């Protein structure tokens, strides 16, 4: 081994943290968020009246998930400075030094282009256009613009997370319809109370990072009021959806039970003040946040079940309104 090559190897070893493994790059794609994207996109695709061949369906869902992951990588690249400050995000690949920011940007841009083109080829170009818009919305509109400039960041930025079921639906049908808009609306209205509950108990994080969350700009009392207001609107929307094309008796039962629990906890959060929350270490806020994850899963599972049950079954049971 020559002296030069020895030095090169030594230098590379010294740069160990930048020599990322496969798992570090995969972590850039926010795999937990991708799981939710895969699930909601799959429901949107399977609930559509027009079926795709199963290989086309798998390909479409995969490329939607890769697009979501790409936007996650772009978000991590842009937000590396505030991720380093926040306890919840400090161990992400860039702030922890495992991935070079330039590599994250390259991966995000590369996978964005790849996923959009491949979805266009596998399904159709309207779905691909929607995916491109979603990536742009999350990476540019939300991450670069809204997140650091307005307390409405979560409200408007939530649209990015609401698009996957609509893209799944469009991948199957080739058009946007009322049903896909309803699935979009469900996630769109669910996002603010979900994140505001998180902001209530991860309180120092957003303060330290200077992110203008509602808790920081309007105070914690106003955040509690907002959680209740959005939960009420969400409950009305979620239950009303039972009487549309994506609904049915099973969905109605799930929506009534889940929204009753969600509303009850939102009222509890609204009635509490900071002292009460401190005493039990934000028990209600944490349980509201955890339940919100189940809430979304339950609603979309119910939509999927309704789509799989033929309308004739409900007609035979005397529930012709859902036939």
């Amino acid at each position, binding site marked *: 081994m020559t002296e030069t090559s*020895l030095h090169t*190897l030594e230098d590379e*070893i010294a740069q160990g943290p930048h020599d990322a*493994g496969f798992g570090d790059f995969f972590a850039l794609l926010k795999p937990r968020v991708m799981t939710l994207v895969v699930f909601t996109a799959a429901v949107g695709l399977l609930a559509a009246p027009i079926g795709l*061949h199963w*290989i*086309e369906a798998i*390909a479409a869902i995969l490329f939607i998930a890769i697009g979501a992951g790409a936007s996650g990588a772009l978000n991590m690249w842009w937000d590396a400075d505030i991720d380093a400050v926040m306890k919840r995000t400090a161990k992400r690949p860039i702030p922890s030094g495992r991935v070079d920011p330039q590599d994250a940007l390259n991966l995000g841009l590369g996978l964005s282009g790849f996923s959009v083109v491949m979805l266009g080829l*596998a399904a159709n170009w309207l779905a691909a256009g929607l995916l491109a818009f979603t990536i742009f919305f999350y990476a540019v509109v939300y991450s670069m613009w809204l997140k650091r400039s307005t307390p409405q960041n979560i409200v408007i930025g939530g649209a990015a997370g609401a698009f996957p079921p609509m893209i799944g639906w469009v991948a199957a049908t080739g058009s946007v319809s009322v049903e896909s808009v309803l699935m979009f609306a469900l996630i769109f209205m669910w996002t603010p109370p979900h994140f505001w509950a998180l902001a209530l108990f991860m309180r120092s994080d957003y303060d330290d990072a200077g992110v203008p969350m509602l808790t920081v700009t309007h105070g914690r009392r106003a955040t509690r009021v907002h959680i209740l207001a959005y939960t009420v609107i969400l409950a009305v929307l979620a239950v009303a959806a039972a009487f549309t094309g994506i609904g049915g008796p099973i969905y109605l039962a799930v929506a009534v039970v889940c929204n009753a629990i969600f509303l009850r906890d939102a009222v509890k959060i609204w009635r509490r003040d900071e002292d009460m929350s401190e005493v039990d270490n934000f028990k209600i806020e944490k349980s509201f946040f955890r339940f919100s994850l189940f809430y979304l899963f339950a609603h979309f599972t119910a939509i999927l079940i309704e789509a799989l049950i033929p309308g004739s079954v409900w007609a035979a049971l005397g529930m012709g309104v859902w036939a």
Partner: protein
Amino acid sequence: MSFASEHEMHKRRKGRNMGVALCLVAFIALMFALTTVKIRDSGPVEGFDHAPRASALPATEGEG
């Protein structure tokens, strides 16, 4: 100065290369399956070899 035959850095690189290789193989398999489905869904394909294409033959008298 000596280096262990399998330094942690080498392990990491090997893992990364294996991951990329598996992704490429999976992508090729998916493309093959997707192409097969797309071609099958596009209807019967007329070839230029072995058999004349019915649609390319000149119309004969009596056909209507």
